[in-house]
Structures are given as structure tokens and as C-alpha cells.
């Protein structure tokens, strides 16, 4: 998203559309009660979640307001008491090391070293899952857990929203751990 936003500006490209993030829409749809998520599924399970603030989305694009939207959505979906924030966070968050072309750069050792900061931040929350609402973050944070043999899972936000709504099919649970593989399955 940053590449387009920055590119439109830098190269003075005329256009008639605005740039929007689905995170802001999720939050709006939940506030307007169009997206009827709830955290009942996690009431007894008490699975803990933390969230990554993607640099491209937060610091480099919409700032703290979108970080608030992100937390609003996450808390609605997993339950306020099951959300643990990383520190620092929001616009001051550390990059995971998945951005800037890092994943494709071939400097894998450096990327893992860089990612240690993020790894330790996640581990400090003791969360079972890290929600990564950006693709590069998802790939990097997932790879960090494998490389350093950490036992958190990495999930997309849409996975949890769909889980909460009871519409997440069996083959859409690739990134969920065994604890959530059968939770809130569609009733058919």
C-alpha cells in the first residue's frame, strides 16, 4: 500500500480514487453492527493473542488511529481479556524485518538477526498467537517462529474474524494450532 501511496505522490500520478485499508473497514462494519463478531468462542478457552502493527499500514500510512481500529477489531474478536499488547507498539512499533524486500533479498541470516527484536517482543507477551495483518509481516513472523523454534502461531486477521463468525471452513484453518482447529466450526 505504501508503494502505491508514495508512488502516486512522488511521480505526480493523477487518479480519481482514494486508498483504503480493510482494517478500517472491519472496525467500521463492527461498529455499525454489520459484522456481528463476538468472542464467546474464547470465553472458556482463554487463548491469548497479540498483534503486529505493520509499519506500512501504521507508521508509514495512517498512523495511530488505524492502530486503534486494529485493536478494536482484535478485542471484539478474541475478547478484551485475551489480548496482550507488545511494547513498544502502534507508530512506535518495531519492524518485524519482513519489509523493504528483506524476504526476497537473500540476506537470510541478517533477516533472522533483525527479527530477534520482534521475536523477543512477541515472546514477552506470552501470547499463543500473533496476529499479522500484513503479508510480509505474516511471512516473517511465521518464519521467525520456525527458525527460533518458538511456539506461537501466526495468523491472518480474516481467519479470526471468520472463526468468530462461525464461517471458517476446515480447509481455511491452515495457520491455526490444534487448539483452534475445530473451534466454532460452521454448523453443517
Amino acid at each position, binding site marked *: 500500500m505504501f508503494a502505491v501511496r508514495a508512488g502516486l505522490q512522488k511521480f505526480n500520478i493523477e487518479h480519481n480514487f482514494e486508498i483504503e485499508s480493510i482494517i478500517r473497514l472491519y472496525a467500521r462494519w463492527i461498529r455499525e453492527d454489520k459484522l456481528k463478531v463476538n468472542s464467546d468462542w474464547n470465553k472458556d478457552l482463554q487463548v491469548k493473542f497479540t498483534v503486529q502493527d505493520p509499519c506500512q499500514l501504521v507508521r508509514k500510512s495512517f498512523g495511530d488511529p488505524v492502530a486503534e481500529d486494529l485493536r478494536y477489531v482484535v478485542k471484539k474478536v478474541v475478547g478484551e481479556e485475551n489480548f496482550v499488547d507488545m511494547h513498544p507498539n502502534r507508530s512506535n512499533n518495531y519492524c518485524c524485518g519482513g519489509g*523493504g524486500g528483506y524476504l526476497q533479498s*537473500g540476506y537470510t541470516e541478517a533477516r533472522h538477526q533483525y527479527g530477534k527484536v520482534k521475536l523477543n517482543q512477541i515472546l514477552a507477551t506470552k501470547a499463543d498467537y500473533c496476529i499479522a495483518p500484513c503479508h510480509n509481516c505474516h511471512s516473517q513472523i511465521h518464519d521467525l517462529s520456525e527458525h527460533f523454534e518458538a511456539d506461537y502461531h501466526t495468523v491472518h486477521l480474516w481467519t479470526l474474524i471468520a472463526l468468530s463468525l462461525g464461517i471458517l471452513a476446515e480447509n481455511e484453518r491452515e495457520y491455526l494450532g490444534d487448539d483452534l482447529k475445530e473451534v466454532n466450526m460452521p454448523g453443517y
Partner: protein
Amino acid sequence: MAEEALKVSDLKGEFRKKVRELLPKGNLDLCLTCGTCSGGCPATGLEGMDPRKFVRMVMLGLDEEVTTTPWVWMCSMCQRCIYACPMSVDIPQMVGLARQAWPRETRPKGILGSCDMALRHDTCSAMGTSEEDFEFVVEDVLAEVREEQPGWENLEAPINKKGAMYFLNQNSREPVTEPEEMVPLWKILHLVGADWTYGTKGWAAENYCMFLQDWEAWEHIVRVKAKAVDDLECKYWLNTE
């Protein structure tokens, strides 16, 4: 610090000149050497480098070192340093310029390849996915959900729907390597009744040409995407992140 003794103005750094031209209002000269940037940078220590040191080297006109250190590919251009810096010195922009100083063919192969792939089709997919392949995957996955998941017989994944409110983009990884990951999002959009569409052109969200610092290619990709959204007369270019 020994370097303070040198008179910076006497040094002839071509790279420094370029940075001065391209960065706003003497940005480089504002550095207080306080080190706040380095303290909060995950790339500190890699290749014996850190952002403060990088700025000092640019400042001192150490062109050779600045334009050859692989560290510029280990900085993720995350902008945390600018955010933390009391003088808002734009370090990632300097890093970008240093990346650009590398002859194109010597830049990291993976980033280079992803950029070149994206130039092959108007899809802008860094995995080289064509218009037809994207359309095929979306329709195939949709048909499967409609058939196998009760209650979703009317699920939609519109393509090239003119006048839709949202033009949704998608990271290539999904259609190419894990297409079923697109489905939860379609379901959510369906439930809220969102008026959205994919476009066969410009649907791919990624842009490695920017990371490669190939400005011509970066501009090309942004133009193709912007035209795709405008041609379909969509009001919003919607990101999945």
C-alpha cells in the same frame, strides 16, 4: 569523536551532494549524532553498521563505503528512526539512494527478479501470474466453495465489475500458493454486503520495484495499478492490510 575534527564542508562527496539535492531542507545537516535512531533500530550491529553511523558516513562524504555496504539491504526502510529522531532525519531515504547507487544487475537477485516479473503482465504480480491465470484461480476456488460449503451457494468474487465501490487488491501469494486463504475475506465482504471487485489488471498488491529502487519500474507499476482502478471507476483502492 575523531570525525568531528574533520571539516565536513571540505570533503567532496558526490553521494552527499545527491542526498542534499533530494532530501528536503538540509535534512542531513540537522543530525545531532544523538544515537536515538540506532538505539531503536533492529538493524543496528548488522555489518558493523547502524543508522547513526550511516548518516555520519554520508555526511563525511565516504561515498565508496556508503554505496557498497550491503547494510542498505538489511535496513527494512521501516521509518522507525525518523519517527524517533528529534530532527526527523530521513535515513531510509538515504538508504534508498544508496541502494540505487548499486548497478541494477548487482542488486539482490530475489528483489530484482520479483520486480522484473511484475513488469511482465499488467497484473503487476511479482510471481508472474497472468490475467488469465488469476481469473481462473478465483473462479475455480469460488466454484468449489459454492459446491462444497452449504450456505455459500451465492458467494461472489466479482472480477472487473465496473463502478464497484472497492477495488480489492491481493498479494500474489494467495492466488498462487494458498488460494483457499482468499475465501474468509470473500465471506466477510459478502456478509456486510460490500460492493467490491477484483481487476484482472493491477490486482497484485506487492511492489518490489520500489524496494529495488528502480524508480522507472516503480512508477510504471503504480501507473498500471492506478489506471486499472480508474478504468473500473472504483472509488476506493482497497488493501487487504
